[in-house]
C-alpha cells in the first residue's frame, strides 16, 4: 500500500521530469536497479505518450526484453535456446543471431507485471482493439486508481461493446470508491459493484468495510453479506457440478471394466494400463500432427478417439487370445496374469517414451472457462461430461440393439446354448474383451486432458474403477452409471468439510459397509444370469 502511494506520489511529481526524458533515455534505464525502480521507469515510459511505448511495455511484459552486454542496447530476443535472434526494441532493426550469454534479460516479476498492466491499461483504454480495451478495464479494476475516474467515464461513454462497457463501469465504480468523491456517488458505485460476481464484490469492497461514513459502511456491509449469501447458495450447485464431472471421469475409467469384469467376469488388472495406452495414442497423434499438419491440431482429439479405440481394442484382443483365454474359470490366475501384463505394459511404455510426463495439448476450443451465476465452469470438464455420457449411451445402445450385442449377452448368459445355436463363442469373447479395452482407450484420450500422461497414469484409476463396478452391481451398466455419479457427488460434498484425505477414507468405509450388507451392489443382476 505504502509502495503504491509512493509510486503515485512519484508519478504526480514526475511529469515535469518525464517530459525532459525521451523514450530512448528511459528504455536505456530499464535494466538498472530493482523491481521497484523498474516499475517507476515503466510509469514514466507510459507517461511519455510516445507511440512506440506500448510495444516496449508489451515486450517487457512478455519477458522478451534483454540488454546487449557489449553496447547496452535494449533488444527483443526471440527464438529457441540454441537459435536466438535479436531486434532493436525502438527501431525494429534486425540485429541477427545472438551468441550465448551475450545478452542479459531484464527481469520481470509478478508485482512489476501488475504495474506494467496498469500502465498499459491507461494507454489502451480507448484502443481500437476490443481485447486490449477489455484488458485495460480489467487492469483498472484490479488496481483502482482515483486518477482514472474521468478517463474511465469517458471511455464508458464512447464504448460500443456492451460487455466491455460493463467491465469499464465496474472499474469506474472501483475508482470512484478509491477517490474522495461524495457519499452519494460512492453509494451508487457500491450498487454497481454489487451487481458483479460475488468474488469480485468481496475483493473490491472488503477494503471499505471500516470507512468512517456510516451510510457507506452499512451499504458496503450489506452488499458483501448479500454476495456471501449468493455464493453460499451457488456453492451447492458448484459442488453438484464438480461431483458430476468427477463422476463422469470415474464412469469413463470404469465403463470398459464394466464389460470385461462386469459382463465377462474377467478380473483385468491391466485395465488401467489400457487407459494409459489410450492417453499415449493421443500423444502420438498430436506429435504427428505437430510435425506434419499443424493446421489440423484442433482436430487432434477427434482423430485420436477412433485410433485409440482401435489400437487399444486390438491390444485387448491380443491379451484375451494370448493369455486370458487359457485362464477362464481360474480367477486367481487371471488376476496374477493380468497384473503381470500391467507391469509389462508400464515398463514397455517407459522404455519407448521415457519415464517423464508427456505434454498433451488442449485444443483451443476446449480451453478456458465461463461464468454461470456464481460458479466457474471450465470447458475441458464440460467436454468430458458430454463425452463420457455419449460413450455410455452409445455402448448401451450397441449392447441392446446390435447383433454383436445380442451375441455377447447370449454367450455370457449361457455359453453352451449359445454355442449350440452357432455362435462362435471364442470370437465373441475376444471381441467383447476388445470392446472393453477399446473403451478404456477412449477414457485415456479424455484423461490425457486433465491428468499426467506418464506410464503411471493407469494406476491411479484401477482401484476406483473396480470400486465403481462392484458398488454399482457387477454386470449392470446402469448400476455403473449410478455408482460413478453417486460416488463423484458424495466425494465432492464431503471434501469441503472433511478434506480430500478424510473424504476418500469415509467413502471407502461406506462402500465396505454397503458391500457387507448388499454383496451384489446397488443394482444386482436377477434371474438365471445372476447364477452364471
Amino acid at each position: 500500500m505504502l509502495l503504491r502511494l509512493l509510486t503515485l506520489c512519484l508519478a504526480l511529481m514526475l511529469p515535469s521530469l518525464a517530459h525532459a526524458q525521451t523514450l530512448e533515455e528511459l528504455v536505456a534505464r530499464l535494466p538498472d536497479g530493482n523491481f521497484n525502480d523498474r516499475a517507476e521507469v515503466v510509469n514514466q515510459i507510459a507517461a511519455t505518450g510516445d507511440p512506440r511505448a506500448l510495444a516496449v511495455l508489451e515486450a517487457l511484459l512478455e519477458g522478451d526484453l534483454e540488454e546487449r552486454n557489449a553496447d547496452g542496447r535494449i533488444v527483443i530476443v526471440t527464438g529457441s535456446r540454441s537459435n536466438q535472434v535479436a531486434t532493436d526494441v525502438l527501431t525494429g532493426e534486425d540485429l541477427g543471431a545472438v551468441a550465448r550469454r551475450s545478452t542479459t534479460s531484464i527481469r520481470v516479476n509478478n508485482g512489476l507485471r501488475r504495474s506494467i498492466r496498469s500502465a498499459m491499461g491507461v494507454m489502451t483504454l480507448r484502443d481500437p482493439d476490443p481485447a486490449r480495451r477489455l484488458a485495460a478495464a480489467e487492469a483498472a479494476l484490479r488496481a483502482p486508481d482515483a486518477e482514472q475516474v474521468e478517463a474511465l467515464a469517458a471511455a464508458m461513454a464512447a464504448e460500443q461493446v456492451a460487455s466491455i462497457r460493463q467491465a469499464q463501469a465496474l472499474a469506474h465504480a472501483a475508482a470512484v470508491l478509491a477517490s474522495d468523491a461524495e457519499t452519494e456517488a460512492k453509494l451508487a458505485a457500491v450498487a454497481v459493484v454489487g451487481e458483479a460476481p460475488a468474488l469480485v464484490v468481496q475483493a473490491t469492497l472488503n477494503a471499505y468495510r471500516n470507512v468512517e461514513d456510516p451510510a457507506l459502511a452499512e451499504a458496503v456491509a450489506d452488499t458483501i453479506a448479500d454476495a456471501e449469501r449468493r455464493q453460499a447458495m451457488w456453492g451447492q450447485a458448484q459442488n453438484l457440478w464438480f461431483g458430476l464431472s468427477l463422476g463422469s471421469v470415474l464412469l469413463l475409467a470404469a465403463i470398459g471394466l464394466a464389460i470385461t469384469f462386469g459382463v465377462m467376469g474377467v478380473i483385468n488388472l491391466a485395465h488401467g494400463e489400457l487407459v494409459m495406452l489410450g492417453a499415449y495414442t493421443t500423444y502420438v497423434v498430436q506429435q504427428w500432427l505437430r510435425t506434419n499438419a499443424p493446421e489440423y491440431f484442433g482436430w487432434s482429439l477427434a482423430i485420436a478417439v477412433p485410433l485409440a479405440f482401435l489400437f487399444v481394442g486390438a491390444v485387448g484382443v491380443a491379451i484375451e487370445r494370448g493369455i486370458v483365454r487359457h485362464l477362464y474359470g481360474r480367477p486367481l490366475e487371471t488376476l496374477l496374469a493380468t497384473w503381470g501384463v500391467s507391469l509389462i505394459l508400464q515398463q514397455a511404455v517407459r522404455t519407448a517414451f521415457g519415464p517423464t510426463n508427456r505434454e498433451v495439448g488442449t485444443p483451443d476450443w476446449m480451453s478456458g472457462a465461463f461464468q454461470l451465476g456464481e460458479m466457474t465452469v471450465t470447458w475441458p470438464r464440460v467436454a468430458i461430461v458430454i463425452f463420457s455420457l455419449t460413450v455410455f449411451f452409445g455402448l448401451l445402445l450397441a449392447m441392446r440393439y446390435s447383433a454383436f450385442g445380442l451375441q455377447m449377452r447370449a454367450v455370457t448368459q449361457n455359453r453352451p446354448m449359445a454355442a449350440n445355436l452357432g455362435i462362435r463363442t471364442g470370437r465373441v469373447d475376444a471381441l467383447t474383451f476388445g470392446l472393453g479395452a477399446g473403451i478404456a482407450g477412449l477414457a485415456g484420450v479424455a484423461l490425457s486432458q486433465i491428468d499426467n500422461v506418464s506410464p503411471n497414469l493407469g494406476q491411479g484409476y484401477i482401484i476406483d474403477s473396480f470400486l465403481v463396478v462392484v458398488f454399482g452391481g457387477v454386470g449392470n451398466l446402469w448400476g455403473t452409471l449410478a455408482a460413478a455419479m453417486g460416488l463423484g457427488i458424495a466425494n465432492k460434498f464431503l471434501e469441503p468439510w472433511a478434506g480430500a484425505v478424510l473424504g476418500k477414507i469415509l467413502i471407502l468405509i461406506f462402500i465396505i459397509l454397503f458391500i457387507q450388507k448388499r454383496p451384489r451392489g446397488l443394482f444386482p443382476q436377477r434371474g438365471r444370469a445372476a447364477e452364471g
Partner: protein
Amino acid sequence: MKKLLLSTAFCAAAATGALAQEGEPIRVGILHSLSGTMAISETTLRDAMLMLIEQQNEAGGVLGRPLEAVVVDPASDWPRFAELARELIEGDGVAAVFGCWTSVSRKSVLPVFEELNSILFYPVQYEGQESQRNVFYTGAAPNQQAIPAVDYLLENGVERFYLAGTDYVYPRTTNQILEAYLQAQGVAPEDIIVNYTPFGHSDWQTIVSEIREFGSTGRPAAVVSTINGDANVPFYNELAAQGISAEDIPVIAFSVGEEELAGIDTGPLVGHLAAWNYFMSVDTDENADFIDAWHAYIGSEDRVTNDPMEAHYIGFNMWVEAVEAAGTTDADAVIDALVGVAVPNLTGGISSMGANHHITKPVLIGEIQEDGQFEVVWETAGLVLGDEWSDFVADSAPLISDWRAPLSCGNFNTETGTCGGSE
C-alpha cells in the same frame, strides 16, 4: 589442517593397503528407482550420475584408479531400497552410494548404512529434522528453501497463506515449520489455511475453487505448495482452467522443477513461483558447460536439468575431492575428510560441506516462463548452510549436529548438554 588430515589419511591408507590395488576400479553405487512411481524423477538422476562418472574417468579417475558405476533398480519399493543398499555395500563393495529420492526410502536405508558403515549422498530437498553420520545431505533443508520462499512472499506484501501439500512426512513437517514461522512473523492464525491431499490426487476442482475464494478478500494471498510429483500436473491444469493468474494469487512450489513442468503447457502459468537452489536458466559458465555436456551425453537438446541433478554434481565432486584428500576410499577417512570440502556449484558460488553433513547453497526464487523454464527473480545475498534441526519447532530448537571429533553427535542437546535428542 588440511595437511594434517592428508598425512593421517595417508597413514590410514597405507595401513589398509588401499594403495596396493592401483589400477583396480573404484566402485560407486547408484540407488535410484528406474521403474515404478518414482522412476519419473529418479531415472534422470541415474543418467546424471553416469555422466559425471564418465567425465571423471576421462579426467583420469580418482586416486589414479578408474571409477565403475554399479546401477541397481529398487523399483520405488521402500524395503527393496534397504535390500539393494546392503547388496551394493556388502556384495559389490562400493565406496559410496548416490541415491534415494523420497524421505521414506532414505529412512529405510539409514540403518543399513549405519550398520555397514558406508556413505550415502542424498540429493533431494527434504524436511530436515535428521542428521546421520553416514549420510551427506546435498539437497535443501527447510531453511534453504521453504523459509526464504515465504520471506520473499512477505516482502512482496502477501498477507494470507494457503499451505497445500500431499499427505506425507515432507509436507507435514515443512508446513509445521512454516506455520510456526509465519505466526512468529505476525501472520494471524486465521490467515493461514493448511490443506492435505492424498498421493496422486487428480481432481483439484474443489481445492482450486477454495483457493480462488481464499484469494478474493481484497488482501494479497498466496499458495505455498508442497504437492508432490504426479499430482502437480492436474493441479496446475486446474489452476489454468479456472483462470487463476500468478498476478492475483501466486503459487510457490517446493517440488516443481523444470522436469515436472515438461508435461504441462506453461503458457497460462507464467509468474507462478518455485524455490530451489538451482535453475537451468542460471546464467553462468559452469552451468552452460554442464547443460551442454548433459545434452551431448543424453543425445537430446530437449532434456532439461534440475536442482537434484546439481545436488549430485556437487555431492559427487565433494566425494572425489575428499577421497583424493584422504588418499583412500575407506569410509571413516572419507567421512572425516568430507567435512569442510568446498567445490564450485553451478550457480557461480562455492558450496562447502558443513559439520552437520549439510551443504551451503544459494536460495533462488524463480518464476515460471512461457518456455517451461524459470527466471530468477530473487536470490539470497550469500550461501546458506542447511539447518538440520529447525529452530521453529519446539522439540528440535535446542538440538545441533556436529560430526567432527570430539563432539561427533547428530542430535546434541544444547540445553541438557547431552547427545541423544530432546528426550
